[in-house]
């Protein structure tokens, strides 16, 4: 590993990112030459899948790559599969959407794959500047994707807001890195093990990193942008936002926790407060929403809050050694998985039911849906029940593991606050289900023909719904994998 020339194994360790970027570039190059829209969908689909396949190769070659800049281990493997799955499903869901909205395809997929690659880098980065590059890759692609519906005013607003606030947060992140470097003399996380947790400079740096990442995961008080951006962005992009970048940012946070003891010591109260604020901001905000995209956006904030509860548990437990904290890590990972599936499915349905120009986004458009489209209503109910955390869905186990982590670390108050929030959350998720099943449709929506669900979209729904139920019935394989002692490679 000390040789100046990277070994072949180093390249295996970044193979998923290489493949995603490669296919993204390919899509861009071919854009002027190929007129067939389906070609690009297929290309992006294959590219996203290839990246996932590549992550197996990277998993087979565990260890630090490129002089410790990145780390290939079970943890990064898990996140590569997660963001890869998100990319695959978003590609499938976006195809019909882009056709319907008459938007160019090649650039969309290219940006999507770049963003995915950025998330992959975030998940495996073991060095802060590398993480910064990953963050920028995924962020800049995201800004463009948010404004992809150029003609729609809201889409532009969404992109502008996301860009301005996002770059502000990135600046915080970068400044934080600089301060941490000043305090420790290194940007490599694995070399900060002995850092003095009481140093003011390090504390300041870590706080800024936390602010930067808090923005990405939409933690209150840095969540203001979320509803507007989610609402304005094209819905498949919203699906991506709610599942991908969030998971990647949480991955980086977890990585920092797992490798830098100073961070775990310092961050406990920060996470406690962030978690409570975020849960309440999300759930209370969602109560009054009348637009389904905004409702799901606020629910995203609330769920970030639940995940932050697990982080508070991590900080509290990590003092007792990594084996103690493993439960909390597992809780976060499982939650992110279940959450990504559910949000992808829900936003895909929203995207499809929205109709041309995304007109039908009001909650009233969902009244009586069970009579017009019973299967779709049942699917959406599964997702909502999983978000609500009802048993036999993956969301229930996600919530269960977080509760367990919180109780394990004696954070009873936090667990109780989370329970209260779950009840608030139940109200607005049920409201949608009540609308779909117990209300009569409005006259015009009853007269309208049922919205068609093309094959690719149906595949997305099937995969997410089956996954939600399957992980709700048999979480064993996933749990065993993420509870392995060598999750972080060392």
């Amino acid at each position, binding site marked *: 590993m000390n040789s100046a020339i990277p070994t072949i194994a180093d390249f295996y360790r970044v193979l998923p990112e290489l493949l995603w970027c490669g296919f993204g570039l390919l899509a861009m190059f071919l854009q002027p030459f190929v007129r067939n829209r389906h070609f690009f969908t297929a290309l992006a689909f294959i590219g996203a899948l290839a990246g996932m396949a590549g992550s197996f190769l990277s998993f087979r070659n565990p260890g630090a790559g490129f002089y410790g800049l990145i780390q290939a281990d079970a943890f990064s493997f898990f996140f590569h599969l997660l963001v890869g799955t998100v990319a695959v499903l978003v590609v499938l869901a976006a195809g019909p959407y882009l056709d319907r909205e008459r938007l160019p395809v090649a650039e969309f997929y290219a940006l999507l794959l770049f963003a995915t690659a950025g998330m992959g880098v975030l998940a495996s980065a073991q060095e802060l500047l590398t993480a910064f590059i990953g963050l920028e890759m995924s962020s800049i692609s995201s800004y463009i994707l948010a404004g992809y519906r150029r003609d729609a005013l809201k889409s532009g607003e969404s992109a502008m807001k996301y860009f301005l606030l996002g770059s502000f947060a990135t600046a915080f992140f970068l400044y934080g890195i600089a301060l941490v470097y000043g305090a420790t003399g290194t940007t490599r996380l694995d070399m900060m093990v002995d850092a003095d947790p009481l140093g003011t400079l390090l504390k300041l740096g870590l706080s800024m990193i936390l602010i930067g990442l808090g923005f990405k995961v939409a933690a209150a008080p840095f969540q203001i942008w979320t509803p507007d951006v989610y609402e304005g962005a094209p819905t498949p992009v919203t699906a991506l936002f709610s599942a991908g970048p969030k998971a990647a940012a949480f991955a980086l946070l977890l990585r920092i926790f797992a490798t830098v003891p100073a961070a775990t010591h310092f961050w406990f109260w920060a996470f406690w407060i962030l978690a409570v604020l975020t849960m309440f901001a999300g759930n209370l905000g969602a109560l009054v929403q009348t637009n389904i995209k905004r409702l799901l956006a606020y629910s995203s904030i609330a769920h970030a809050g639940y995940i932050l509860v697990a982080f508070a548990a991590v900080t509290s437990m990590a003092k007792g050694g990594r084996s103690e904290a493993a439960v909390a890590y597992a809780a976060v990972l499982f939650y992110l998985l279940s959450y990504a599936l559910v949000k992808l499915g829900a936003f895909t349905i929203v995207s499809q039911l929205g109709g041309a120009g995304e007109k039908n986004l009001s909650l009233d458009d969902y009244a009586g849906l069970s009579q017009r489209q019973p299967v779709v209503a049942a699917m959406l109910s599964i997702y909502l029940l999983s978000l609500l955390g*009802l*048993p036999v869905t993956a969301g229930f186990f996600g919530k*269960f593991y977080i509760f*367990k982590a919180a*109780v394990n670390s004696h954070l009873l108050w936090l667990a109780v606050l989370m329970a209260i929030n779950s009840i608030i959350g139940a109200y607005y998720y049920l409201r949608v289900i*009540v609308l779909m099943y*117990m209300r009569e449709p409005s006259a015009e929506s009853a007269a309208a023909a049922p919205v068609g669900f093309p094959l690719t979209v149906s595949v997305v729904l099937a995969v997410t719904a089956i996954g939600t139920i399957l992980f709700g019935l048999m979480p064993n394989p996933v*749990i065993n994998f993420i509870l392995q002692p060598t999750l972080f490679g060392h």
Partner: protein
Amino acid sequence: MLHGGHLLSVLIFFPAAGALALMMLRGDDHKYIRYIVLIVSAAEFSFSLLMLRYVRVGDAGYRLEEFAHWINQPPINYHLGVDGISIFLVILTTFLTPISVLASWKSIEHRVKEFFVMLLMLEVGGVGVFLSLDLFLFFLFWEVMLIPMALLIGIWGHERRVYAAVKFILYTMAGSIFMLVGIIWLYNATNTFDLPTIQNMLATGLLALSPRTEMLLFLAFFVAFAIKVPLFPVHTWLPDAHVEAPTAGSVMLAGVLLKMGTYGMIRFCLPLFPGASHRAARWVALLAIIGIIYGALVAMVQPNLKKLVAYSSVSHLGFVVLGIFAFHNISMQGAVYQMLAHGVSTGALFLLVGMLYDRRHTFEISEYGGLATPMPKLAAFFLFVALSSLGLPMLNGFVGEYLILLGTYQRHWQWASWAALGVILSACYLLWSYQRVFFGEITKEKNRTLPDASAREKWILITMAVVTLWMGIGSVFITRRTAADSQAVIDQVEPQRPYEAAAPVRPGQQAARVAPGVASADSPERSGTR
């Protein structure tokens, strides 16, 4: 086959399979769907009767246990078992389901397939709750049951159905989410979700909870159960849910869902948190007595017949809770008996109210009057059921209330005296409402030509009446089987009361009496009695 094979799993999964098969069917031929569901639920009932062979008289403990690993981190097991208490609740569930199917034969006209799927899912949840011996599994069935019930109310209910459905689900979830935290907390202390294992740890002193922890855990469980029962201050969801639910929903709600709460108290609160149960007993009893009297008084002034029956449930379930928290074997058995009797007689009352509604589409008592003239048979059945509900000797309601009062009296005569008021009041509100509905002059012209009970209705009511009568006369059949297990529960709450311990003391319990954890959990005056 003597070991019973996988009878309990069959009981849980057979209706689930039926529901799944039903979902695959096309929904337009309603007649076939009704017959299929009737056959499935009747078969399920006969399966459940098979359990009787395996639950021995005079022998406490779980039978027909099934154990399989389900999730390994944390260890959650698929652990089922039945004992003298749960067996009859399961049979009650499987008995009321075909009755509900028959009751909805004509009155459910739209989305028939979905309705029966929900009904079968409800049965799955109910049976699962009563058979689970793993806390996690219990919670799972407990939660799963919410959705079909809420949909039954919200889709097929009456005018304010959506409000009632949402209220129902939010109330119940509010309780159960804290129970989840409690379950996890308990897991943290024991490293297992397995109920018998935890009981064993308590008995051998391996698990010792501080008084404060025990009380908090007790409350986490108790609040969830109290909401479901429902106990006095948290009962407000019940009248709405009952009034708005379709007849079958009301029957299942009264017969099964409410029993889940009281069953939970017997199965979890008392054995797992004996010290806290003791300290809380007087407050719980106070709430129960308030519920008994308040429920009866509110029932008396109800202009709405269905709401009247709903409030009578609050009153009757107050008796059950009182019987449980008197910690006396007789009152405990009375509580179990009252759970069953209430399921049958209140179920029958809801059926009758539903039949009246089918004819006149109103629950207002003032809309009726003099019905005994056009419909003598229905009137006769109504009287019979009302008498059983108010506790006429020889009918089922009497046995439960009598046992509860008898047992409670021996512990706390004041409690019993107050509760006895409820018996008198129930006679008032039931007979008075009966008089207003069935006797007197016919004031509304429409009532003059109402048809009497049809053949289907007659069969439903005859079945209910036969069971009511049999439970009143042959109560020994049930009490013989509940005795040992009620005593086992009492033994776990009050190991220091030897004079009731008919069953021989097992070595494990001997140890419990000197267990330091239990001793420290007690209030000073109780430790003094050791």
